[in-house]
């Protein structure tokens, strides 16, 4: 599949202060495919606590997606990500046969026919992206972390979630990005630019990690060394969750942190397993799974009437 991402312009900052945490929003469509000839079109909308995605699958195949920062209300975020895809592809809600909402704001997607918990959607999405060999999935989301075990069809067999604190989540990385005044996309690579791997900072609380990072800077650590210490803390944190469900070969990471090599390589080192690679944006796994559930429901029940918001 030919996959290329066209980056949408970043949302304008509300003040002059640089926003180092701000990650790149994206919108993509498979220009080789034509949705007009598709028999079923299903849409998945994942409204997460930090980011929202819209994925369109045509006849069960990924056709288009958008990924944007979640705004201050879920219905608007759902509308925004669908609007981005509509602008790119010309697809309207009247053309869609089923819409599934997932994520933290799943019940507030105004045009969805069904809401499905994100754990099942991430497993289904990872199964599509990584194939039937995927067994262990780590979803490092904006404000929670999920460890999932699934079978060869992407059905969940074991899961746990930790959403009590921001440690080990994307939001935690955003906090460190702002503190270090380094763009979030650069943190991973910079964490490798150290003479010696430092001890991990506190892995149980972002507030503690932040104050510990400041203390390390005052003690003479370079920024890169502090970032390395935080990446190591995140890796240790999520590995402890993964161990509770049991790690098996076929390891796949979803969510925004999958793009941070500093965390991913350290997780791989602790586990002794390489994460599976995909050319599809790891951040869309939940919405992709939701869209695939929608595709299956269309096949079972037939198309649903559009809910126009």
């Amino acid at each position, binding site marked *: 599949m030919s996959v290329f991402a066209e980056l949408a312009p970043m949302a304008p900052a509300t003040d002059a202060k640089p926003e180092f945490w701000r990650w790149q929003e994206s919108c993509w469509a498979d220009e080789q495919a034509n949705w007009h000839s598709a028999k079923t079109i299903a849409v998945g909308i994942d409204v997460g606590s930090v980011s929202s995605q819209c994925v369109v699958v045509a006849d069960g195949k990924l056709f288009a997606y958008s990924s944007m920062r979640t705004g201050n209300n879920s219905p608007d975020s759902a509308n925004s990500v669908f609007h981005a895809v509509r602008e790119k592809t010309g697809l309207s809600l009247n053309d869609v046969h089923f819409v599934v909402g997932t994520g933290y704001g799943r019940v507030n997607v105004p045009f969805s026919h069904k809401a499905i918990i994100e754990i*099942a959607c991430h497993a289904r999405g990872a199964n599509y992206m990584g194939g039937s060999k995927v067994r262990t999935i780590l979803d490092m989301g904006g404000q929670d972390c999920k460890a999932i075990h699934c079978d060869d069809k992407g*059905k969940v*067999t*074991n*899961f746990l979630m930790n959403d009590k*604190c921001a440690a080990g989540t994307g939001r935690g990385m955003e906090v460190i990005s702002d503190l270090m005044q380094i763009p979030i996309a650069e943190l991973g690579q910079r964490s490798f630019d150290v003479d010696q791997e430092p001890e991990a900072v506190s892995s149980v*609380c972002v507030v503690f990690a932040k104050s510990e990072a400041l203390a390390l800077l005052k003690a003479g650590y370079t920024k890169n060394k502090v970032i390395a210490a935080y990446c190591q803390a995140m890796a240790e944190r999520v590995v402890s*969750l993964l161990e*509770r*469900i049991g790690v098996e070969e076929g390891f796949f990471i979803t969510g925004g942190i999958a793009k941070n090599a500093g965390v991913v390589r350290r997780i791989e080192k602790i586990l002794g397993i390489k994460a599976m690679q995909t050319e599809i944006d790891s951040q869309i796994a939940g919405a992709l799974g939701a869209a695939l559930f929608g595709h299956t429901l269309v096949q079972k029940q037939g198309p649903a009437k559009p809910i126009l918001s």
Partner: protein
Amino acid sequence: MIANYGYKDGSGEYYIAIDTDKCIQCPVGRACISACPKSMFETMTDDYDDEVVWIKPSFRRSLAYDCAGCKPSGGWSSLPCTRACTPGAITHSW
């Protein structure tokens, strides 16, 4: 499916695991629901259309405190929920 509800924080790991394969055909009429003094359990239909028991979302971030009354320090020799669940679908991590 093993569904783990709970959290890990600085004080420890607090998860209640429910084996939904054992829960689906409950032979004791969801006795865990009435056994829990805090009414933490309820039935729901999961994403694979099976009716199972889960922990109500409002309790999932405070299990260490909510379950404390049923732990040995509260005078219990065994947990009311795990005792009521004769198929053995419910386990506590702590």
